[in-house]
């Protein structure tokens, strides 16, 4: 029987200033040198990180009441519509919602980044006028400090692995996987490999509802399973998914976040998205958790799909490792294809390092999940009825 440790023990070590924390990259290197048994013996927590475009992101805002008050039925922030079908002055702003005046070049993600940067945002709202909310229009300027509550609530983040995209056709495709050159001219991928949070905990043993995380430079929590959460995806001999599988919904106060780890993006001919910096600590509770946390880029794999096929079920063309993807080229059915990432490894590393420092400095304690992420089969397609 190997060593085991509990969340309480780890948190006591954090309090006593004795906790040992390594990033996922550091622990992979340590396991290669000293073996996984030594890792379990010496290390308490492993930090992970990712910084990728996560379209399913957005923020809840409460504006406070004007005088006379208005029940906002439609809301715009810098000309970007926000969903206001909630109580009078609550709204939800989605990252991919586009500006009505600037189109694809500015969207909800940009408003969120501008809020975090402390910029003034134009608020426009209309209502239909009620006895309790007589006013029908309001137009004013707000900053993040004027809001009562402003928190990210991202329904789907931190995908556990993702596709590698190529394009078999004769024309260039502009996708959320970047610019895909014709005739297998390039391959793009978007996971931080051995640093990726859900790849480090493939069976969701420590990541669950209530897990405290690094989010956008501040502190957040796992709120729920993410949309399209799909643990039943094809897995390899280590039990790690070979393509996009589990997801998490996350929540966190936008006020603690910063532009270094939260950035608006424009994907050419596709629209806007939000780059979200996300890091999750993995407590090394037992040898089984260590076994999967130390899997390296040579052992973690992703499936290549043809994004030139404009159908729901794109053909899978093969499986490659993250070490191959990082090398700058992959070989696929005899063809050598140059590769490029879309998520920032540089930022993923600094997230894992920053989270490590927070824990070592006693600013961040680990939480035991209050509920596990569900294990269910598949994602349903949309059935169309005539």
């Amino acid at each position, binding site marked *: 029987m190997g060593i085991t440790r509990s969340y309480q023990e780890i948190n006591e070590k954090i309090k006593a200033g004795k906790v040992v924390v390594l990033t996922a990259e550091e622990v992979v290197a340590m396991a290669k040198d000293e073996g996984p048994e030594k890792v379990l013996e010496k290390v308490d927590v492993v930090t992970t990180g990712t*910084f990728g475009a996560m379209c399913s992101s957005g923020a809840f805002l409460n504006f406070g009441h004007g005088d006379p008050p208005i029940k906002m039925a439609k809301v715009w922030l810098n000309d970007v519509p926000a969903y206001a079908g909630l109580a009078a002055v609550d709204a939800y702003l989605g990252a991919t919602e586009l500006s009505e005046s600037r189109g694809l*070049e500015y969207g909800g993600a940009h408003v969120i980044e501008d809020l975090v940067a402390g910029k003034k945002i134009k608020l426009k709202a209309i209502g239909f006028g009620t006895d309790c909310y007589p006013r029908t229009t309001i137009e004013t300027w707000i900053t993040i400090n004027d809001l009562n509550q402003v928190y990210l609530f991202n329904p789907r983040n931190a995908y556990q692995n993702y596709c590698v995209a190529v394009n078999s056709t004769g024309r260039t495709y502009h996708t959320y996987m*970047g610019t895909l*050159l014709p005739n297998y001219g*390039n391959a793009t991928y978007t996971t931080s490999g051995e640093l990726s949070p859900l790849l480090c905990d493939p069976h969701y043993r420590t990541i669950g509802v209530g897990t405290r995380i690094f989010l956008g430079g501040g502190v957040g929590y796992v709120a729920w399973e993410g949309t399209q959460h799909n643990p039943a995806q094809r897995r390899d001999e280590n039990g790690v998914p070979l393509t996009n599988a589990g997801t998490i919904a996350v929540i966190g106060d936008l006020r603690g976040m910063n532009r270094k780890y939260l950035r608006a993006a424009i994907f050419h001919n596709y629209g806007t998205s939000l780059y979200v910096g996300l890091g999750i600590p993995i407590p090394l509770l037992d040898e089984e958790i260590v076994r999967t946390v130390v899997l390296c880029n040579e052992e973690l794999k992703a499936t290549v799909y043809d994004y030139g096929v404009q159908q729901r079920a794109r053909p899978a063309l093969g499986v490659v490792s993250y070490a191959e993807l990082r090398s700058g080229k992959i070989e696929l059915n005899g063809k050598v294809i140059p590769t490029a990432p879309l*998520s*920032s490894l*540089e930022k993923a590393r600094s997230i894992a390092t920053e989270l490590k420092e927070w824990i070592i400095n006693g600013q961040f304690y680990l939480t035991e999940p209050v509920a596990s992420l569900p294990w269910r089969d598949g994602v349903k397609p949309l059935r169309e009825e005539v």
Partner: protein
Amino acid sequence: MAKRRVVLTFPQELTERPITYHLVKDYDLAINILKAKITPGEEGKLVLELSNGSPEKIDEGLDFLEKQGVIVQPLSKEIVLEEEECIHCGACTAVCTSGALRLDPQTARLVFDREKCIVCELCVPACTMRVIKVMF
């Protein structure tokens, strides 16, 4: 090795004659075509990198082109990267076939080698942060 990058504009009547061939044959210039858009019967554009042991040979070759009616301009456009706003995602490297934009394998930071850049401009829309621009 002397090197120069030029933009050549071919008037309609010249697009069907093998002019660049003479640069190689008569002036001993190595030519690297960076960009070309030549349709017979229409005005054509060619962006070339010319190299030879002596800069004089390049001058002579360009004089020859001008005498034929080709408009010769230096390649003055360049790609500018706003480094402090870059997130080092690597999306631009996916379209940079010349290898001017690449991620350093150690630091994972974006490196821009201006010498290799052929100003094809594909990186401009590929940059999701909009921090790559063309400067004239």
